[in-house]
């Protein structure tokens, strides 16, 4: 029953908070924290287990069975450690960060709801459950981005996130149904058999259909993991509270797309990803990582820098999955979750200390005011830019680079360039925000945050260094992970050399360009304005498509629904009424005459009509 506890505990916590503890913020927050800590302990207990506990029949129509079941394997238990571990630390961090917030109870209720939904995605045993929880994380993400809904920007960002995800989810749903059509089942464990049966029956159909199914499923990942061209919601989602950004929009939910792709790859077999589908996925990932890294170099909001960095790293993971190295992608997901959560919580601490100032050009000199936060942020940065041998990010990024090197040299080049850009923009952010002298009142008066915030930061910093050694359970998923490293030993030194060169160049460029500067020496409007993609969406999709559609629907509503259907039926019955009103003239003789005619007609028909 332990796996079910993992799923139901956050749900109970959310329900109790919502139903009984709305007015008692302290108890609500404590309940949420307690539930997530217990789930963390449970996920440690479940490491290495493969028994998902009892399954319940949900839908049963003829031969078709859809159980509610949990799937436990090395992949899901490993992912659960990430989700509950980071979840627990973020909950504790939020206790301090959200201490003075008026809607603390609601915040923790939504966090618990999110934990429930995310656990559901990770443990789901079939595609339908994945989809349900997929939508539920979308909902909780919406609620949490819009936590400060009085601000228009937050409400808009929440809407944007939800609607952009709808686009991806539409494809996802089609993909799920296509997969069902191919394999005849939604259950992950049975998919391989079903696919083989289909391949035996229709050998000529299976390749194209499989590619289409995978690409449609990938649409869901594009939405949730914010890949190009549906990436626009993630930077805007930074309007939510910073702990939310750390948990949902850096570590767990956005990684759900990659997780789901890996789950599909495990279920259908890695061969399914070879060919068109895999290539498309890899190129989308590579393109996203490149564009996002370019955009990150010119952002001034510290959270936006991190958001674009998340996009870029997610692009890495997706690229790895597309290249058939899903293990490398999952490995990077695992390490990235810890250090990106660390970076976000660090930025949260900084923002908190600077009185909710997010512009890095108004910070500066924080190393003297907040030494511990600076140290942890530096560790997170080191992990993200993959400082060799001491950080977890190095190992996972190496793994991805090795996969790219083996499969696609162009993507490998892009990945190395992205590594350089990553180092550059992180150095920029670090140098500008933490070194130099304070540039503004807020950063001048900043002081170190309390222990409730520092403790999660320090623990995450530990994980940022050490998480790569804790991934044994992951490598057990597929022994090919080890093969990868051996297979490409000849390219190993080249890869190491190139990534080290990217690191050194990026560090040098960042330090030399930004040290002691008070404003940005580089001015690239194209990158500042994020390639004008948002503008294109605004002007093109929203103005033309949405407004055009709205006009069309308005026309239909006013003229067809209101005018023709509703008004028309009213007018029709009215005119019939008018017509028959003539007959009811109140003229006695008229009635008698009609009666006579009627009798004559009845007699005529009964007598002379056979």
């Amino acid at each position, binding site marked *: 029953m332990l796996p079910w506890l993992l799923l139901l505990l956050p749900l109970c916590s959310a329900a109790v908070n919502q139903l009984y503890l709305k007015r008692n913020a302290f108890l609500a927050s404590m309940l949420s924290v307690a539930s997530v800590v217990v789930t963390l302990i449970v996920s440690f207990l479940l490491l290495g287990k493969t028994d998902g506990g009892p399954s319940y029949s949900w839908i049963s129509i003829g031969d078709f069975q859809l159980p509610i079941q949990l799937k436990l394997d090395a992949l899901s238990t490993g992912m659960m450690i990430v989700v509950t571990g980071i979840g627990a630390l973020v909950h504790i961090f939020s206790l301090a960060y959200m201490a003075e917030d008026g809607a603390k109870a609601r915040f923790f209720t939504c966090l618990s709801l999110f934990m429930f939904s995310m656990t559901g995605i990770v443990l789901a045993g079939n595609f339908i459950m994945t989809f349900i929880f997929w939508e539920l994380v979308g909902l909780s993400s919406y609620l949490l981005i819009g936590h400060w809904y009085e601000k228009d920007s937050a409400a808009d960002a929440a809407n944007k996130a939800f609607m952009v995800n709808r686009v991806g989810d539409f494809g996802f749903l089609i993909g799920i149904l296509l997969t069902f059509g191919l394999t005849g089942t939604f259950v992950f464990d049975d998919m391989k058999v079903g696919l083989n049966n289909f391949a035996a029956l229709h050998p000529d159909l299976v390749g194209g259909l499989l590619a289409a199914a995978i690409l449609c499923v990938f649409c869901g990942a594009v939405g949730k993991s914010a890949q190009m061209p549906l990436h626009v919601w993630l930077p805007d989602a930074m309007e939510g509270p910073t702990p939310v950004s750390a948990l949902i929009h850096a570590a767990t939910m956005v990684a759900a797309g990659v997780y789901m792709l890996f789950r599909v790859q495990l279920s259908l077999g890695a061969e399914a990803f070879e060919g068109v589908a895999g290539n498309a996925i890899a190129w989308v990932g590579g393109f996203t990582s490149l564009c996002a890294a370019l955009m990150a170099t010119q952002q001034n909001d510290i959270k936006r820098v991190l958001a674009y960095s998340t996009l870029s790293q997610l692009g890495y993971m997706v690229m790895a999955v597309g290249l058939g190295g899903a293990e490398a992608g999952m490995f990077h997901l695992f390490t990235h979750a810890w250090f990106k959560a660390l970076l976000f919580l660090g930025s949260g601490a900084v923002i908190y200390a600077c009185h909710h100032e997010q512009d890095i050009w108004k910070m500066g000199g924080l190393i003297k005011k907040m030494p511990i936060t600076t140290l942890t942020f530096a560790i997170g940065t080191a992990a993200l830019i993959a400082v060799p041998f001491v950080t977890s990010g190095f190992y996972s990024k190496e793994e991805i680079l090795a996969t790219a090197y083996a499969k696609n040299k162009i993507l490998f080049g892009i990945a190395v360039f992205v590594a350089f850009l990553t180092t550059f923009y992180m150095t920029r952010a670090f140098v500008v925000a933490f070194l130099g002298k304070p540039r503004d009142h807020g950063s001048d008066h900043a002081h170190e945050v309390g222990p409730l915030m520092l403790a999660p930061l320090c623990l995450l910093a530990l994980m940022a260094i050490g998480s790569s050694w804790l991934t044994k359970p992951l490598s057990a998923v597929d022994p090919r992970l080890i093969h990868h490293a051996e297979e490409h030993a000849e390219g190993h030194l080249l890869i190491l050399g190139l990534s080290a060169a990217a690191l050194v160049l990026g560090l040098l460029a960042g330090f030399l360009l930004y040290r002691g500067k008070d404003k940005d020496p580089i001015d690239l409007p194209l990158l500042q304005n994020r390639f004008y993609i948002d503008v294109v969406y605004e002007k093109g999709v929203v103005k033309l498509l949405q407004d055009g559609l709205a006009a069309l629907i308005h026309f239909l509503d006013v003229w067809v629904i209101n005018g023709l259907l509703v008004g028309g039926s009213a007018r029709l019955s009215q005119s019939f009424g008018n017509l028959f009103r003539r007959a009811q003239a*109140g003229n006695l*003789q008229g009635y008698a005459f009609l009666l*006579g005619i009627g009798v004559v007609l009845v007699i005529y028909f009964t007598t002379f009509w056979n």
Partner: protein
Amino acid sequence: MASLNSYLFVSGLLFIIGLSGVVMRRNIIVVFMCLELMLSAANLTLVAFSRFNGTGGLPDYSAQMLVFFVITVAAAEVAVGLAIIVALYRARQTIHTDELTALKD
């Protein structure tokens, strides 16, 4: 002796006169009288058939029985109808159907 057809012809004539009276006249009493005329037409038909459809030199008495019933019921109906007309006249001071339009208005 007159044939069955001549009886039926007279009876039909009576019925048509009655019907057209009911349809065309505006005075309720006349309408009422025309109604009685139509009943008489029916009675005449019944009696004619009774006379000509007899068996063994005797007429078919069941038709004549029906005629008596019709006359009885018609008498009762006349009593009720005239009473209604009197009441109507007292209430409205008119017995012209054109002016009796309370339900329509």
